[in-house]
């Protein structure tokens, strides 16, 4: 294999592993689509859910999600957990579905991350634009991973 292209393989492997882990977790985890998505916010509980209201990025989900807020141990802030009341399934949660961005948990993960960033840092860090990169086969793969990255992962 030409040297310049070799790294596409581990990248693709890491992507597949990452998406697979985020999708189903360890084999046999039949709660994969129903697990709480959780972050710990370094703010007191009354700031995480003031007056019982959801923070802005999560408000769009409103009646579609369950929310749990509780103090984190060891003065680590507040644990914020959310999950869809109707767990998704079928093709939308398959690997192709996730790569296409069709799994509703991806949007929920993104909203949860943005909520944490807004509460802690006051803003959601935006990537540099306009991009300086050009389209190449490997670059297109990285671009796909970047587009899905905010909605994937271990939350």
């Amino acid at each position: 294999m030409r040297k310049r292209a070799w790294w596409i393989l581990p990248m693709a492997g890491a992507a597949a592993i990452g998406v697979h882990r985020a999708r189903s977790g360890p084999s046999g985890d039949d709660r994969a689509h129903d697990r709480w998505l959780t972050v710990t916010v370094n703010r007191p509980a009354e700031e995480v859910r003031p007056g019982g209201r959801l923070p802005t990025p999560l408000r769009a989900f409103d009646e579609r999600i369950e929310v749990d807020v509780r103090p984190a141990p060891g003065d680590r802030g507040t644990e914020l957990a959310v999950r869809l009341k109707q767990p998704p399934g079928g093709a939308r949660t398959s690997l192709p579905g996730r790569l296409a961005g069709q799994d509703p948990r991806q949007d929920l993960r993104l909203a949860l991350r943005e909520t944490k960033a807004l509460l802690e840092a006051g803003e959601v860090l935006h990537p540099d634009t306009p991009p300086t990169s050009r389209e190449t086969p490997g670059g297109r793969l990285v671009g796909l991973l970047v587009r899905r990255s905010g909605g994937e992962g271990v939350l």
Partner: protein
Amino acid sequence: MKALCWEGVNKLSVENVPDPELHNDQDMIVRLIAGTTCGSDLHLIGGYIPAMRAGDIIGHEFLGEVVETGPGVRRHAVGDRVVVCSFVGCGRCWYCANDLWSLCDNTNTNPGIAQAMFGYETAGIFGYSHAMGGLRGSHAEYVRVPFADYGAFPVPEGIDDTSALFCSDSVPTGWMGADLAGVKPGDVVAVWGCGAVGQMAARAALLLGAERVISIDRIPERLAMTERYIGSETIDYTAVDVAAELRERTGGRGPDVCIEAVGMEAHSDGPAHLYDQAKQQLRLQTDRPTAVRQAIHACRKGGTVFILGVFAGAVDKFPLGAVINKGLTVRGAQMHGQRYIPMLLERMAAGQLKTAHLATHTVPLEQAPQAYDMFKHKTDGCVRAVIRPAP
């Protein structure tokens, strides 16, 4: 503006790219005064760090002048000369609040990639792949600095540009290695690598009270530089058996603290090097941990090994048995620069830390590809090449 772009494995070129823009209230734009090559860039250039796209700007260790600030920036003003930490920290997540800045929860804009690789994402870093946040690098005329109040530090007037530049990354990285390894008065410390980070780790160990510091490398001019400017003893690993030499110099105990400042492309002159290279080229391991293995074997019973070199993935033949049976503490980290930079600038102003000697070469941005080639092959005595967009 002009910028140094990664164009593919072992391909760099200077390109015209759009100027950076403010995207967040807490951003500022810095006009580059100087940046420097870093050994960890070589891993990117060589294709060992995944998630690069052709056209990405590299570079993460830099100093510049503030030219524009967002409305949320409180601590900086246009015209300030600042050194900028290579890792970006939001300043308010639990990790930043606990001085673990390279673990910031809120500055990696592509968290899913790093979570797939490491379990959890790291902070974002300038110019170090989309896995590490996808931020533009600093080898350019201008760079956007997010969360500027937390990552940029005014440089005292008495410190020249070239000296202050290294406070962006290599000095705090080296200091962190000695600090978090727990170096204390009376310790004997061994440091693998006499590049900029290794030299700074050795200097930090001496300033933290180590009785003896022994630096290990194979490049004669780096060994000589370390003896002259850092004040540590040295070992040329191509000339002697390092483990035997360390035993002899430490009364048979071995060093109390071993700091590895080499990273994933370690070199050695033994058969293990050929083995590691073959496995790395066949992608059966991603990193060559030669110096880490040596440090673990050489360390005294109950001692500490700190891994400062950059590693990306999996290694083979990791001597876990030695770690367990000798009761070692093994620790590693990307650098928590914000924790150390103000103190380091004070020490620099007081003359306790000298870095200007690291800048063996200075080139304009247009010659940055050639500078990286020289840096990679360690030709012409190159330790660090300083890149100045406006010479």
